[in-house]
């Protein structure tokens, strides 16, 4: 009898799926949408530019059809002139089909160009190249440049921030509360900042990719994953609570910096930003405070921390900037930016929770937060980030 019962259960699990498949078949076969639209109704055409790069004497653009209907690319215009072009995957694009257009155009460095793709119905899709600059190709020179930028804005500032450790380790209890609150302030800023950037990048994605949903899910996923990892680490007692928390903060900041590196690299590559000295200084100052955030939980434990461990933390927090800059510079697409910024946001949210628990360890959390040092720390942390952030913005 139990065997039969379980068979019956499987049948009930499958029945809705079978019916769903049948329903889909009927919909595809009868085409109710076509009946509504009629014969003369034009197709819904949607093309999204994915990556547009400039080579000497040529514009190369990858376009994606993220509309429901097939799109046929008929002609290309650059700056209001028909121009010849070639494609690698043809001119007929099905749903989510993509092709790369190569337009031999004598673009002018430093000027603006508008690339227009015309479909078979004459519908134009435009992409503006704000400032024409040759797109870096993977070469030692550009690898070097991006590595240097990553060092300046990621690795070195975080490392410098870590050097506060000996000073922090001697702080009073009130000083320590201030410090932890300061860290929360810093991270809260990064949380908001990363969320804004991520949602902004998600709006650039083709609609079918549902950027906003992707961002939220990736952030939530990262949050839960880090909760799980930190619980695991604590259960195994592979280190002190402070050490685990420091690693978590470093990972969160590292992910955030990866997203930041992506943004810098792509802006540099696409000629959308001139990466001036002021901007680099801004990021450097901004990110120094991240080092402070990493070592705060260690300082609270008042234990000696080997220099090697400090270096490890610095690398976890800073080095992803370099990887981000590489990826952003050479193979940028907004979907990477959305994913990494989201993961960074999720990670930072998790870390904020961890630190908040440390602050409130002795008292109830609500009471812990109303103390003067904590309030001052929160405000100071947010203010420091805000002011240094002005240099970046």
């Amino acid at each position, binding site marked *: 009898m139990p065997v039969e019962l379980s068979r019956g259960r499987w049948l009930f699990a499958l029945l809705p799926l079978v019916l769903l498949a049948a329903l889909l078949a009927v919909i595809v076969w009868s085409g109710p949408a076509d009946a509504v639209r009629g014969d*003369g109704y*034009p197709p819904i055409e949607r093309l999204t530019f994915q990556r547009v790069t400039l080579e000497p004497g040529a514009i190369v653009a990858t376009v994606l059809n993220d509309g429901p209907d097939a799109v*046929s*690319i*008929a*002609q*290309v*215009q650059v700056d*209001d*002139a*028909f*121009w*010849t*072009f070639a494609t690698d995957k043809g*001119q007929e694009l099905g749903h989510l089909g993509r092709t790369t257009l190569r337009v031999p155009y004598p673009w002018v460095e430093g000027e603006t160009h508008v690339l227009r793709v*015309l*479909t*078979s*119905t*004459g*519908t*134009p899709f435009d992409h503006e190249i704000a400032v024409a600059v040759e797109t870096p190709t993977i070469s030692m020179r550009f690898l070097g440049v991006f590595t240097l930028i990553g060092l300046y804005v990621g690795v070195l500032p975080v490392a410098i921030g870590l050097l506060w450790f000996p000073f922090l380790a001697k702080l009073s209890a009130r000083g320590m509360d201030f410090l932890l609150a300061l860290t929360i302030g810093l991270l809260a800023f990064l949380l908001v900042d990363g969320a804004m950037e991520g949602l902004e990048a998600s709006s650039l994605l083709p609609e079918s990719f549902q950027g906003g949903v992707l961002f939220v899910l990736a952030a939530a996923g990262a949050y839960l994953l880090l909760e799980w990892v930190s619980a695991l680490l604590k259960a195994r007692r592979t280190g002190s609570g402070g050490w685990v928390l420091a690693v978590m903060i470093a990972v969160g900041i590292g992910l955030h910096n990866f997203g930041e590196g992506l943004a810098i690299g792509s802006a540099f590559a696409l000629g959308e930003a001139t990466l001036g000295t002021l901007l680099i200084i801004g990021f450097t100052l901004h990110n120094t405070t991240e080092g402070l955030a990493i070592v705060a939980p260690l300082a609270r434990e008042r234990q000696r921390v080997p220099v090697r461990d400090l270096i490890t933390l610095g690398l976890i927090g800073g080095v992803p900037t370099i990887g981000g800059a590489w990826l952003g510079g050479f193979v940028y697409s907004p979907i990477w930016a959305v994913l990494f910024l989201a993961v960074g946001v999720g990670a930072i949210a998790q870390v904020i929770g961890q630190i908040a628990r440390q602050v409130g360890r002795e008292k109830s959390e609500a009471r812990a937060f109303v103390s003067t040092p904590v309030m001052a720390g929160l405000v100071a942390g947010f203010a420091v980030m805000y002011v240094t952030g002005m240099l970046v913005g």
Partner: protein
Amino acid sequence: MGTVGRVPFDAFNPTTYLRSWNFSDLPTEQRSKYYRETPLPDGRLLREYEIYAVDREIEIAPGMFFPAWTYNGQVPGPTIRATEGDRIKVTFRNAGVHPHTMHFHGWHPPAMDGALHGQEVQPGATFVYEFDADPFGLHLYHCHTVPLKRHIHKGLYGTFLIDPRGGRPPADELVMVMNGFDTNFDSENEMYAVNTVANAYMQDPIRVTVGQLVRIYLVNLTEFDLINSFHLHGMFFDVYRTGTSITPGERTDTIMLCQGERAVLETTFRYPGDFMFHAHQSEFAELGWMGLFRAVEAGSAG
């Protein structure tokens, strides 16, 4: 630069269009369905035309289709050509889904204007326009139903040519209608052409003979833009504005026309080879309004 690919000319051939009037591009038996001429007792000709409005998708650049409203399935519509004083009788049938009319430039009584309130020809209805061909010159016809901009730019226009009695000197005659197409309906043209197909005469240069008089009937039916222009490389031409005189008004290599304006241009090719012609608004030229004459010596195979 330029467009990629070719437009198949099975539906509309810009090269044939250049030298076709009164349906001369059709085989005799088919032609008689659309055009008949009957001598009148007073020595004039009665010219009867069958014109119908029909919605049709036309290819305006390789792979680029435009949902046009057409006269007899083509843009520009068929060229109507008569001699000064002839009786014109156009039976116009509206096979489209919107009301349309035919509004001819030239002398005619208000009842034949095709523009006044109540003169719209409803879908499925027929109207007969009848008037004398007057004055001689280069004219045009177009739909005058409101909204006017849309009815014109969708393709309802053509050339109405009236020869002076006794005609003009023999020449290689070419009809050119400057037009543009707003493919996304934002009241701006996405492409321009002479005789509809972008860059058609770049790919198939217009063959002309060195030393032979060439006469161009140039009409501007560009919508949305203030003006259009015609520029010929390496040569000059005589201009007969509106074609209403037999003495040229000026000699130039660039002429500017407002919408609805037209001019007869005469020139003779002095050298063999390719001569570019295009709008001298560079933007229009690069958006499709550019072509080539290919001049060959008389008697050569070309």
